[in-house]
């Protein structure tokens, strides 16, 4: 039975020019996430360290990391990952 990622917590370094609403909106709209939250951990002159929590039915990790890369963010570490085992019936339903 396959397992889908439902929650990922990342430690992300982002440019200060990229606002938190823009960041979470972009992840929500284009990386297939259903719920995204970002918490500022550290503020520097040109950068900010953010704890990014991404939740969804089935998170595409490659898509998420690719989107963050495109937004100019550097993923420093993947701090937490939650997966859910899915029965074959649900896999068919989910496509």
């Amino acid at each position, binding site marked *: 039975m396959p397992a889908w990622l439902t929650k990922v917590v990342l430690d992300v*370094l982002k*440019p200060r*020019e990229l606002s938190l609403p823009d960041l979470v909106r972009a992840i929500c709209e284009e990386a297939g996430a259903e719920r995204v939250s970002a918490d500022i951990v550290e503020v*520097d*002159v*040109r*950068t900010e360290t953010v704890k990014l929590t991404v939740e969804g039915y089935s998170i595409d990790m490659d898509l998420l990391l690719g989107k963050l*890369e*495109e*937004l*100019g963010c*550097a993923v420093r570490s993947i701090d937490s990952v939650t997966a859910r085992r899915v029965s074959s019936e649900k896999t068919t339903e989910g496509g």
Partner: protein
Amino acid sequence: MNCFDGVMTMLGFILGYFFSGGSNPETAIGAGVAASIAMGVSGFTGTLLTEFAERARELEELERAMLKDLTPTIYGRALRLAAFAAAIVDALAPAAGALAVAAPVALSSMRLVSFPTAVALSVATGLLMLFTLGYYLGKIAEGKPLLYGAVMVGAGVLVSVAVTLLGGA
């Protein structure tokens, strides 16, 4: 501000041509269009290079802070797009300003107005454009639009008087 340069240059050129004894509108409009093209190309290349260099330096600073190459990101794309957009605007603005001032002379070359009338209309168009530019600058600077407009017109009058005196000498 590049539009200001275009208007001033064409104002000086038309008055200089007229007061140095020139009376052929075709010659004036040909040289005017050539000057507009030159100003457009100059504005495009100058702005493209300076904007690109300045923004590339800013991106480099950000890359140093982020410890990563930002060329393939939205920041790299924004750098190229913004430099190109600024160059297009700086190419069109002086050319458009110059051509607007030269438009009455084009009417003269079509025998719709006499050349001295066309020169007077060009001066009036130029001063009106300078006032409008100054007024707009005053508005966005939240200063005194009328004062800004008057200063711009003053600069235009100064150029006109200087060129007239030089042409008549």
